[in-house]
């Protein structure tokens, strides 16, 4: 549990999340084409699951937080991302 032991009840350090959305997902985004690093996906992702890989000028995905909604696929102007079905739980 990612929680300071001395704090009782549903309280988290600000900026952390109590639950990981990756346990919900039945599909995951995969970068198949050329990422232009425009970061539209990063802006639209509701879970903050897009990781900026500055060195390689491309995005990556945090599957602990990605709930598999596919918004990144829809927003990507270069159609570089595809959703791939999974068995569930991308973590």
């Amino acid at each position, binding site marked *: 549990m990612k929680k300071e032991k001395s704090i*009782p*009840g549903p309280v988290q350090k600000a900026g952390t999340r109590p639950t990981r959305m990756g346990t919900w997902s039945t599909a995951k985004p995969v970068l198949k084409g050329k990422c232009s690093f425009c970061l539209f996906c990063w802006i639209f992702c509701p879970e903050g699951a897009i990781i900026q890989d500055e060195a390689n000028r491309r995005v990556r995905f945090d599957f602990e937080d990605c709930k598999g909604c596919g918004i990144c696929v829809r927003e990507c102007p270069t159609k570089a991302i595809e959703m791939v079905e999974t068995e569930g739980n991308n973590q």
Partner: protein
Amino acid sequence: MTARMPVKKYITANEAVAQAAKLARVDVVAAYPITPQTSIVEKIAQYIANGEMDADYLKVESEHSALTACMGARMAGVRAFTSTSSQGLEYMHEMLAYVAGGRYPLVLVNVCRSVALPWSIWGDQQDAIQQRDTGWIQIFTETGQEALDMVLQAYRIAEDHRVLLPVMVCLDAFIQSHTEELIEIPDQKTVDSFLPPYDAVVTLDVDNPYSISVGGFGQQYAHWRAEQQEATEKAQQIILEVGDEFARIFGRHYGGLIEQYRCDGAEALLVAMGACTGTARDVVDEMRDEGKAVGLVKVRAYRPFPVASLRKAISLAKAAAVLDRDCSWGYEGALATDLKGALYGLPNPPAVLNFIGGLGGADVPPERIKYMLEKALAAKRGDTPHLEFIDR
């Protein structure tokens, strides 16, 4: 001259509770008036208006808002107080669970009154019992003095970092709330030495930000709920510790989780909560004088339910007469069910006879208590459960 001297006054339990809130140096009071609680919040408003009490009184539009405002005050790191009865407590229901789950150490005084319908402003304990599973520590009191003393103790119990749960101090409508008795009001300095300022673990603080009252589901939700259960169980020990410390400082001891009155060698015990235990003491004395082996077990802490203490107190008797001023419709009185659960696993346990009475302000006179104890004396271990509405 006035330094460390308690004063004695003829006041109602409601006024005693208002005095307790003042002595507890409560910072925020948010409440909505309802019979028979009204005179508590009237008195507090008066203390604040005439400068005797330094607190913010929030006039809110409902009990739901009253409890929510108190929760907000707790988030901000100050001490808060509210009080209600009956329909008002029911209106708080959603927030009661919220406050307990959020681990906010509030203190609420509930003046126990029946719930509608049939409409009644008179006393029974249905309102408090219906909130049993919201996660509050519930303590039932017998006298105005005990109500005052328990409000002070309730803040210590609630705010203990091993507990951090809200406490509901219950007193009975009219029999306590509107009846004057000689009550010792402790002096402020002694109360201050017993009850230090609230030391919040987490508050709304921009320099040290936390997400407070966050959501969680699945394993995370279960984890927090399991912690809540552990803290509520742990509270049994804290209630005892605080009660002992209170007795050392103020000289009044109430027995902790339960009080056993003349239980030595008793064959039949009356198990009850609240003001009617006062009458029961006299009945027990009379019946003991007649040579009948009876005793009284007064349940003070209803949640956490003192399973171990009750098992020990009841196991040697052959029968327990449980008086419930409430009913879990379709089953029986709630205290009776809980007591039976506490006795589970004992070989050949005492019979449990459940009497439902004192509903809607009906008196529980000595004759009725004697009737229940006589029935219990006539019972034997292994008897089938008995349920009886004594007033119909």
